[in-house]
């Protein structure tokens, strides 16, 4: 797990058009600069919001990333719920302590 670098990449993608351009045009070179597992790399490339949430990515980073990749609000909220159903509870970070109040 290298949650820090997953979050760092999302932070930079969210705020910096130049990083987004590199992500589009030379993705492998960009991703090589971050210490990512294959699962983490795939989750980012696939825009797998549910898995990224389960990995423990801070929600504010993830919300902006979901908007960046064009996910509608309900789709984004449901993706987190489906992620937990598919992959199990959040693995790391603040949300490991989160009690489900959504039902």
């Amino acid at each position, binding site marked *: 797990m290298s949650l820090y670098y997953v979050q760092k990449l999302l932070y930079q993608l969210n705020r910096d058009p130049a990083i987004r351009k590199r992500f589009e045009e030379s993705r492998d070179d960009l991703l090589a600069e971050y210490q990512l597992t294959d699962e983490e790399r795939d989750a980012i490339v696939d825009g797998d919001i549910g898995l990224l949430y389960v990995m423990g990515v801070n*929600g504010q980073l993830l919300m902006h990333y979901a*908007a960046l990749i064009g996910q509608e*609000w309900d789709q984004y909220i449901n993706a987190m719920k489906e992620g937990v159903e598919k992959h199990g509870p959040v693995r790391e970070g*603040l949300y490991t302590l*989160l*009690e489900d109040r959504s039902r």
Partner: protein
Amino acid sequence: MSLVFAGVCSHAPGITGRAHRADPAVRDAFYAKLGEMRERLEAARPDALIIVAAEHFANFFMNNMPAYCMGMAESYEGPIEDEEWLGIRHTTVPGDSDLSRRIIESMMGDIDLAYAEEWKFDHGIMVPLNFLTPRYDLPVIPVNVNCQGPPLTPLPRAYEFGRVLRRACDAQAERIALVGTGGISHWPATPNSGVINEAWDRDFLERFVANDRERLIAYTDAETFRDAGQGGFEIRTFITVAGATEGSTGELMFYAPIPIFAVGCTVATMNLA
């Protein structure tokens, strides 16, 4: 001069981005009170607006996270978010680097704050500005209190930061307005999005308008997380405004939970003593 206006309001991105999905009656009542807050702000004839917000990884990350940071730029840009998603156009917001520098220098005698000559605004600042300075014609000085990446500054320090900020404002010639932005109880950007603990919010707001320091700083982060979600950590911005207006009480102009906005929508101003 001195501090001429102080208040707090919510900043959730849904307030502008998902406006069409809210109950129009409640939404419009909230917008009306934000409009009234703008009128009070304008009536105070400020030369600059200090906006104390809890940002969301627009500028600061866990590689080098300041507990407190103040902007010191000539101008700022925002929002970082997609314009359509947030419902706010990308723009440039004027700053006042000279005033920033004088306030920062004044504060540094009492508190170690970071400064930044580059700063991109996210919804934490852009949503309030959209209502309070919609023409972006008032110089803005951003302040961030880290409410996102723990460890977080303790609540008594947030109150003290406000006190020190007030002394620095009072030492300047300019007329300065102060607005704190954030949520009270909320679970934004999680599967619990839309959950709001109204009883907790109303109890917090009662402490806030009374400017009851001891009760405002009485929460532990574990209690806040349990009762008010991780979004509740943003009470630090309200507590900073309370510290800056110590000795004054406030007026709650509006509070109503609006679940699609993912927060209990709040507007309050302080009656400066």
